[in-house]
């Protein structure tokens, strides 16, 4: 009679009752713990075992399970949305980089994402996940989100990160191009991306390698640069051009746009390219209207420096035919390009020839206004172009 035993009130039976109560109370916890233990140890072990024996099919032919595809899409879109919150997008996108971005898209992106008027390979269409046709899907994303995707890539999809980490300017140029992409007809796309490279073989010098057409996508058949952010190479010093190509190939100077075409160029081809562009007639200077006081301010910096702020005169290295041939000539160079490079030097994001640190030292003492003025001055300067060659 267990009932009478608990009612009897003796100390010994009290203790037993407490033990019983404790056992009853503990029972659900014991079961619960078992689940936790199984979940914490057993499930990972089970999944590991399943992966080890090859249970999970990694073939791309059958696609993801619907639930997996749904989850991956959710995770990807949410992560891009969240991480893009930290991206500081400009109000209006700079369109000056469009030709270079279009050329890069044609060379690096179009094979997976398609381009106006070009069918994608059946192999690309059987990728998992299938790369989106960007002309159709680019509208799903904001500028900041596109920047995030282009710069960092997307894990598990094959979408690579931008080849140069410090070149946000190039990534923004890509975003500006992606905004244009849905509006482009096949002809417009070809004109934007590869117009400069349709040079006939008779125009070429015999020693010029085939890779020259890659250069011309952005730098133009005349070597003057197809947009203001692409440097004019025509008439540039050969030693500087060669050292710059070598710096791109070694990764000492970073650029996503240059990283692709420079890959796989043999050393003797580099020398031939440098020679080719060095012998073209140099740029004649830009025609843009720039206020005279800006130009004069730039001339002051170029010829005398800013002694009170320890800025040496640019002329000390960059003007005159007697200077070290590895120092580039700047006359007639695009102002937008010079500005961008000076800012990259200033933030120590731009390497180049072994002499880059000397330029970085000088650039760190320049304000944005100084950079604008001196870039404008050199873009107009062309008087002693012949002498420099």
């Amino acid at each position, binding site marked *: 009679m267990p009932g009478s035993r608990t009612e009897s009130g003796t100390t010994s039976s009290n203790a037993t009752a407490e033990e019983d109560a404790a056992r009853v109370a503990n029972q659900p916890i014991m079961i619960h713990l078992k689940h936790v233990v199984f979940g914490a140890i057993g499930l990972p072990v089970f999944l590991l075992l399943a992966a*080890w*024996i*090859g249970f999970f099919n990694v073939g791309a032919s059958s696609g993801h399970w619907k639930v997996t595809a749904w989850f991956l899409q959710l995770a990807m879109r949410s992560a891009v949305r969240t991480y893009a919150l930290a991206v500081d997008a400009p109000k209006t996108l700079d369109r000056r980089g469009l030709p270079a971005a279009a050329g890069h898209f044609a060379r690096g992106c179009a094979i997976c994402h398609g381009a106006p008027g070009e069918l994608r390979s059946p192999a690309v269409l059987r990728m998992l996940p299938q790369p989106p046709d960007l002309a159709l899907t680019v509208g799903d994303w904001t500028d900041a989100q596109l920047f995030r995707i282009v710069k960092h890539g997307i894990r598990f999809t094959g979408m690579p990160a931008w080849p140069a980490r410090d070149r946000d300017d190039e990534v923004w140029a890509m975003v500006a191009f992606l905004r244009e992409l849905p509006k482009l007809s096949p002809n417009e796309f070809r004109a934007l991306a590869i117009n400069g490279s349709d040079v006939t073989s008779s125009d070429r010098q015999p020693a010029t390698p085939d890779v020259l057409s890659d250069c011309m996508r952005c730098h133009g058949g005349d070597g003057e640069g197809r947009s203001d952010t692409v440097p004019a190479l025509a008439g540039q010093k050969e*030693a500087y051009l*060669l*050292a710059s190509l*070598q710096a791109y*190939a*070694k990764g000492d100077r970073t650029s996503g746009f240059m990283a692709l075409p420079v*890959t*796989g160029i*043999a*050393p003797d081809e580099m020398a031939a390219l440098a020679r080719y562009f060095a012998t073209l007639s140099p740029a004649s200077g830009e025609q843009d209207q720039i206020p005279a006081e800006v130009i004069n301010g730039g001339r002051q910096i170029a010829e005398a*420096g800013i*002694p009170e702020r*320890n*800025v*040496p*005169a*640019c*002329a*000390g*290295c960059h003007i005159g035919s*007697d*200077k*070290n*041939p*590895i*120092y580039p000539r700047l006359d007639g160079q695009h102002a937008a390009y010079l500005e961008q490079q000076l800012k990259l030097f200033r933030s120590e994001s731009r390497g180049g020839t*072994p*002499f880059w*640190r*000397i330029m970085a*030292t*000088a650039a760190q003492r320049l304000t944005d206004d100084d950079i604008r003025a001196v870039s404008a001055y050199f873009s107009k300067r062309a008087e002693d172009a012949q002498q420099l060659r």
Partner: protein
Amino acid sequence: MSANAGLLLGCAFWFLAYAGNWVAAGELGHQQAKVVKPPIEPMIPAAPQSSNPTASQDSPGRGLSLFLSNGCGACHTIRGTEARGTIGPDLSHVGSRTAIGAGVLPNTEEAFARFVARPDLFKPGVKMPAFDVLPQTEIQTIARYLKALQ
């Protein structure tokens, strides 16, 4: 319970049966991976080129021409030459100073060469950038020129 154990056991046997194949396939994959070479051939760093090929090796003006062609004149003045910079010290008579680099180095040709290559090592906070990217022979030539400025 026994069904699960049976499944596991089956899997284990199945695994053992195929393990040999997998290892072979793995090795094959490994060999294929080895065959793939990086597309860029390792670049041999370009030997620093003589920065002024026109000046002959031993001409007396070579030190000055190297000084000017590498941009030193943008910061330093040497009277009687094109070097008229005002940011760094006037070097017109630097060879006759008692010491250089704010007194940390003796006034010798070798000390000039060391200072030009890495001024930051001798003078913390120095405004002058390092010129150790120049070939050593050119630095020596510049140092000899500076030491001779009495």
